[in-house]
């Protein structure tokens, strides 16, 4: 009985952790990843080389975010149901002063992560 209860509790606990994680890393990832790793707005002014360069610099200067998963996590935590539009998130970054300088560019943290993801994606492929 005790063993059965233990397995039940463990399974429930695992499900509590796994289901949102699966949603987060699978469903949400599937939904947003392409968008997240494509800095469309910035691509209006910069060529691919510049985007990659910014991405590389951010990636190198922020060792704590040196993985696709971590970058996605940073990006995703800013996207809520209230701000589903990435451009709005970026604008919110500017309003709240979440701005960094990468290679001289004043860009939002979200944009920097986007560029870093884009860099990772391109270097992998």
């Amino acid at each position: 009985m005790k063993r059965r209860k233990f397995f039940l509790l463990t399974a429930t606990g695992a499900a509590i952790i796994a289901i949102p994680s699966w949603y987060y890393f699978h469903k949400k990832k599937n939904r947003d990843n392409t968008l997240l790793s494509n800095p469309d707005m910035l691509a209006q002014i910069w060529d691919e080389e510049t985007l990659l360069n910014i991405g590389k610099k951010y990636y190198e200067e922020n060792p704590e975010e040196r993985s696709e998963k971590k970058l996605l996590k940073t990006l995703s935590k800013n996207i809520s149901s209230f701000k589903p539009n990435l451009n709005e998130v970026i604008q919110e970054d500017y309003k709240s002063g979440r701005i960094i300088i990468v290679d001289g560019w004043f860009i939002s943290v979200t944009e920097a992560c986007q560029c870093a993801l884009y860099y990772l994606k391109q270097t992998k492929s």
Partner: protein
Amino acid sequence: MHIDARQLNNNSLIEGDICIIGAGAAGISIALDWMDTPYKVILLEGGGFEYDDKVQELYAGKTTGQKYYPLKSSRLHYFGGTTGHWAGMCSPFDDVDFKKRDWVGDSGWPITKKDLDPFYAKAHKPLQLGPYNYEYEYWNKELPNLNPFPLDEQVVWNKMWQYSQARFGKLYNKTIINSKNVHLYTYANVMDILTNESGTQVNEVTIKNHQGKTHKVRATHFIMACGATQNARLLLASNSQAPKGLGNDHDLVGRYFMEHLEIASAELWLFKRFPTDLYRWHYGKTKSSAELALTEEIQKEKRILNGTVSLSRLSLAKNLKPKIETWQDDDPRKSREKLNESYDDAGEASKNETGNIRKAFQLNTRIEQAPNPNSRVTLGKEKDALGMPKTQLHWELTALDKRSIRTIYQILGQQVGIAGIGRIKLHEFLRDPEDDTFSDSTNAGWHHMGTTRMSNNPKEGVVDSNCKVHGIGNLFVAGSACFTTSGAPNPTLTLVALSLRLSQHIKDIINNA
């Protein structure tokens, strides 16, 4: 009336009511203000009506500190002064420029913008400008296509400019020559200012020229209008009675030399073309345009200096050499030629630029220099051809100058992001917040200011709020030497306004007497 001082008999005595030393924008504006009055005005010009290299050489001197233009070619020395080749950019100082700011040491004029407003309006006449109105809303009704960037007006505003093409030398020579009461003496370089024994009144000035002739000028009131560098030099060199120089009891003459920093600082890349003429300037065509400026509240909050940001096409600007590099010839005509060549070369190179750069602009800072007593004009050991000690300029910038420029772009970068119109890239020299230095490619505006600064306290300024030299009853300084702080705009409009205010003050003295 015009008299060539070279043709006078040696040791002539010239007498009048008002003696104006220097016939540039300040001196000529004052002389015009006294036209057709019952007073005899003596207007002294060191040169003639055209460029003369021997006369120009009298401006030569040495510079130390921050790299600067050759002193010989940084101002023009003939009738009309530097309006002979100026760009004509005019905009008044802002209210904040006159205020005491606790984050800007030695700031605070003894007068306000309001005191100067009537004279700003009056200065528009000799400068041949439009109405004294620098409101964006006014010009937006007057001119087509002045669409502003959609930036937060609480943070960034459009500071309007007007453009003068007035070359005073050509414009006013006949008027002055034909005047009955203004007596213009050319080739009349003032070498010494002589006072009474107690040093409280100027009795006469000594003038000389390359022909070896010396004359004396006596007048009731004397106005120095030779430009900030030469005014300080003349006061310091007038040391036969006051060993430290006239008006220099507190060692202030020549100190607080200020320039405008005019530096390519960043790039603005727009997401899409923004159709507007608001930020464009075509010499001879544009009546009014704007530069981006930060509001007084933001300056106060960030504790920074007042500056503006102008836009130029990046495709052209990135190919331009810094002015401080092209303008290094002692001969101002050759330096000018090299500057023009640099623009032509950049224009040619820009034709090859394609792609998104066509939607990009270079952002150029125009900013006041923080008042700094160590930035100063002194006398050199060498003497010029007429026997006057040459100018020694030590130009020194401060950490506040650098931090202010960097902060302007941090704010602008944020505002452009909020507006969603593009992104800003900071030039390399501004990226390290710990770096307070300025490189040798730092441009200045050829604007000399602040060497006889204004303060009602003789321990803090050389002239009082009426531009009278402290302690000397009849000696006045006209022009940008009196600026307590240098504002962001080019100085000519303000220096003419201040000169006209001084002119009115002397009229009031005479009328009250």
